[in-house]
């Protein structure tokens, strides 16, 4: 049971990192449906870097860097070129899926390093995740930068005439967001599941994306959602820890996805939709052309 709890909290942490990355980008008006691709890149390159250098730190930093690079790329397509953000996000996902399969293949198998030690019985990333939620909340409700990011996501034209550099603010958000996604992937590949296999995320990024919609762009609600989803995901991976002999293990794997669908459906209720509509960044997904 204790093992289940620690594992599920670590899973929650990965969801938290990735979803916060998406949340920050979305708050600035940039939708990135390619979370899974960014995570795959972070996981694969982080894994390879750590294995080659023997250093977890370098692995994590590589994950962070590749995430930033993909954020930059997504920013270039959707901010500078003003393209369709869904197309670009799809691109990030498919390129992540395709290229990491090729790049990572020679490294298939376990990482082969001593595991990252727990701190007070929990993965150190759990604490980092909670700090990050706190920092994100502070950013958006107490700082000028947060107000600028929110404004750019609500109404870029207004932000522009208020003297805010819309493109810069959006680049900042989407790169920061990409870093968190890449880092989430690296934590997955280095700590949570350090055995590389092709497409070994199987949907983490998409659940994280859905999580942002559930959270109504509130970091605390996001944390709550991440804890639930982490537990559910862990349950689906190792149901024998809690409910041995109940349901086929394949059916268990569908459970988090089925529940995600049910939550999406529940969220479309009238009560929810009004609040959701009010919380949604008004300019989300829309390219901004200056002037």
């Amino acid at each position: 049971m204790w093992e289940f709890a620690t594992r599920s909290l670590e899973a929650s942490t990965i969801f938290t990192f990735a979803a916060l990355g998406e949340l920050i980008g979305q708050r600035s008006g940039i939708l990135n449906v390619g979370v899974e691709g960014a995570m795959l890149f972070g996981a694969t390159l982080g894994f390879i870097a750590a294995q080659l250098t023997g250093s977890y730190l370098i692995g994590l930093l590589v994950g962070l860097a590749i995430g930033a690079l993909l954020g930059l790329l997504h920013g270039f397509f959707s901010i500078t070129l003003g393209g369709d953000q869904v197309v670009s996000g799809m691109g990030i996902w498919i390129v992540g899926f395709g290229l990491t399969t090729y790049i990572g293949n020679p490294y298939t198998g376990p990482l082969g390093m001593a595991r990252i030690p727990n701190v007070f019985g929990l993965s150190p990333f759990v604490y980092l995740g909670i700090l990050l939620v706190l920092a994100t909340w502070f950013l958006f409700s107490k700082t000028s930068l947060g107000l600028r990011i929110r404004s750019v996501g609500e109404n870029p034209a207004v932000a522009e005439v208020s003297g805010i550099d819309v493109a810069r603010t959006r680049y900042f958000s989407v790169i920061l967001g990409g870093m968190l996604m890449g880092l989430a992937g690296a934590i997955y590949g280095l700590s949570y599941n350090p055995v590389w296999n092709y497409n070994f995320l199987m949907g983490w990024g998409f659940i994280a994306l859905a999580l942002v919609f559930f959270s109504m762009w509130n970091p605390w609600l996001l944390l709550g959602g991440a804890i639930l989803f982490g537990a559910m995901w862990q349950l689906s991976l190792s149901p024998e820890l809690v409910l041995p002999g109940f349901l086929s293990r394949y059916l268990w794997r569908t459970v988090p996805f089925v529940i995600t669908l049910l939550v999406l459906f529940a969220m479309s209720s009238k009560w929810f939709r009004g609040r959701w509509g009010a919380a949604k960044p008004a300019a989300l997904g829309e390219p901004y052309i200056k002037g």
Partner: protein
Amino acid sequence: MPQAILSGIKRGDVVLELRGITKRFPGVLANDQIDFTMRAGEIHAILGENGAGKSTLMNILFGLLQPDEGEIYVGGQKVTFRSPLDAIEMGIGMVHQNRKLVLAHSVIENIVLGHPRAGKILNLTQARAEIEALCRRYGFAVDLDAKVWQLAEGEKQLVEILKSLYRGAKILILDEPTSALAPPETKKLLASIEAMSQDELAIVPFITHKLPIVLATSHRVTVLRQGRVTARLETVHSTEQSLAKEMVGREVIFRLDRVAVARGEPVLQVQNLSARSDRGFMAVKGASFTVHEGEIFGIAGVSGNGQQELAEALTGLRKVEEGKVLLKGEEITHAPARRRWQRGLGYIPSERNTVGSIADFSLIDTVLMNYYFDHDYTPRGLVDYARVRQLTEDLIAEYGVATPGAEVKARNLSGGNLQKMILARVLSRKPRLLIANLPTQGLDVGAIEFVQNKLIAAKRDKAAVLLISEDLDEVLSLSDWVAPMYEGELMGILPGEGALREHVGVLMAGGAKGEEATP
């Protein structure tokens, strides 16, 4: 600190000067050698029709566009604005017609947004004290913690003005300052403008057509036409007629002739209708009225008082919460939109670019929007394109739509021509009930006349016409019945003939309900 240029200015000092401003767009000369001088404490109106080059000039003044030629001087010093930030730093503040406010944020967040003194960590206490001081000074009343979307139009405008003043603006540019305001709100705004000009602020309202406002407030007027300055006048020496002539380049007739048509059967009966806005509050509250054959029923009101929701509820695009809608005696309260079209509804929506037409559709496909469900044009589910093309070409000829052909995409038509095409399409179905929502908004004078005459022609053809307009003069001159709308309620139903402008104006601003007339 560049703002120092304008510190210590005295009443009458030149604060802003434009010399030879020229701006070209591909194939268009939007501003042609414009000269303009502005003094402290002066209210200087810039007057011009849509397309006269006002917006371009305004955007240049505010750094959103850069002139191709010409110079800008602030306080006698030559400046270049690469962005609005430069203009703001020079003490220029802009109040936009389509409000530049973040609706989801609070008033105070909007005011401090982008302010250089906002600091890294937001300190709202000090900002609040300063803003409250400004409010007291000019007599503004606005709740700083309210979300902007909760505010009335007039209050939003105050927020924009406050934002500029808080940033230290000495020159205020107001874009169509009264266009979205009801008459009493307009009065209040004009008083505030007066108060600010007493305080050595230079104020530049840009105005399209509300000439009485120009006459009532400004000290001087500059008139633009086709990108050039055609007149510089002292307001005391001008009249409405003379301003209009300078602006349009010909004499303008201000009133349309009313056409008398025998009143027929009731076509649209609305009983106690309620509908919600997108944000979920009740936007239409218990509206009841009847429109008969051969009459125009005008709904007058400032945008955002539920007219949009009313139109959508009647056309099947919005859920009716309560009440009944009858079309020619048949209940259609919850009928789908297509059914209503088939029963004789015709709807001209206010959003002609996004709802009334599809940018990438050819004019043939644009016309098909109201015909695809018609079995004469789509027999057995297959579109008879030859026939639709013929119809489109006929309509283009009949309505004088300026286009190289029927294959042209809707996005390539000008606003007036697109509206003609939509009008042609809707009217060609010979609707028994025509609902026209802001049909002349944003059009130039010629197109406005054309559209208004078509509405009268529809009435003559015994259609029942429901006209929704923000332009009180338009409603009064066209309608047989006028219903002012305020916060979702119809404030009365008055006969159009002889309705007093002032009376209707007060009602559409929420004044005491008028006596009911029974149409």
